[in-house]
């Protein structure tokens, strides 16, 4: 089964990937903040994937965030914000 990626539209030029959990409230706050800032991103709810897809995605997440927690936000394939850090997120996109 392919990894399900939800694309949310926004006005930014940057490539933003959000690895999240559907049950995590901090991830929910991050999604809301991105919506408020009109940032488009690819959203992957890792808990909703099957085991093999999860393992594949976790490898990718750990490249940027070795601790492997959620939410993990990867910007342009290199910058990484872990957790709901409102200040850091706003600064990233100002």
């Amino acid at each position, binding site marked *: 089964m392919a990894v399900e990626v939800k694309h949310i539209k926004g006005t930014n030029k940057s490539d933003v990937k959000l690895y999240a*959990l*559907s*049950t*995590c*409230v*901090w*991830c*929910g706050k991050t999604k809301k903040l991105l919506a408020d800032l009109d940032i488009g991103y690819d959203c992957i709810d*890792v*808990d*909703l994937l099957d*085991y093999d897809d*999860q393992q594949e995605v*976790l490898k990718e997440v750990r490249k940027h965030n070795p*601790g*492997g*927690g*959620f939410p993990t936000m990867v910007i342009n394939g290199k910058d990484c914000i872990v*957790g*709901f*850090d409102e200040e850091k997120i706003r600064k990233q996109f100002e």
Partner: protein
Amino acid sequence: MTAEVSQDKTESYYIKLKKDAQDGGYYLNPDENFTKELARGLLTNEVRYGYQSCPCRLSAGDQEKDRDIICPCDYRDADLNDFGACYCGLYVSEDVFNGRVKLTSIPERRNQGKEEKRKDEATPENYGVNKQQPGSFGSIVSTAGKYPVWRCRVCGYLCARENPPLICPICKAKKDRFERFV
């Protein structure tokens, strides 16, 4: 694949969580919506995996592997002490509860390599298991000595953990009424 947990179930579970927290001397996150969403996440995980795996951590779907993150998790009290909230934000310190300190997301304590698992560390599985050698008594594996013991000076309650609890679960005295016992 995921069953939706009903609003009714979420509401009644939220009420139960609140009561249990109060009885144990803990504070739930005062943001009701936040806390109800976490309650829903716990119930969702219970449907998915058969146990209430932390809603803010990826479950392995294996109760043995996830025992430490079944809510309330093994890290709750250390996190309440150090950061004023548990990892998912369900439990908060009195300061956060009263708005004196802001609730923020906290770093993950699990699997950070800081806790070294001793080879002979006691777990519910091996406690009391004989390390048998012919002619010898079995040895009881114990964590005595790994943790300090704290005593509540108001009621005498003893607990073996890194720091005294924020509130005595027996008599509700504050943390500063505890003294080191062992």
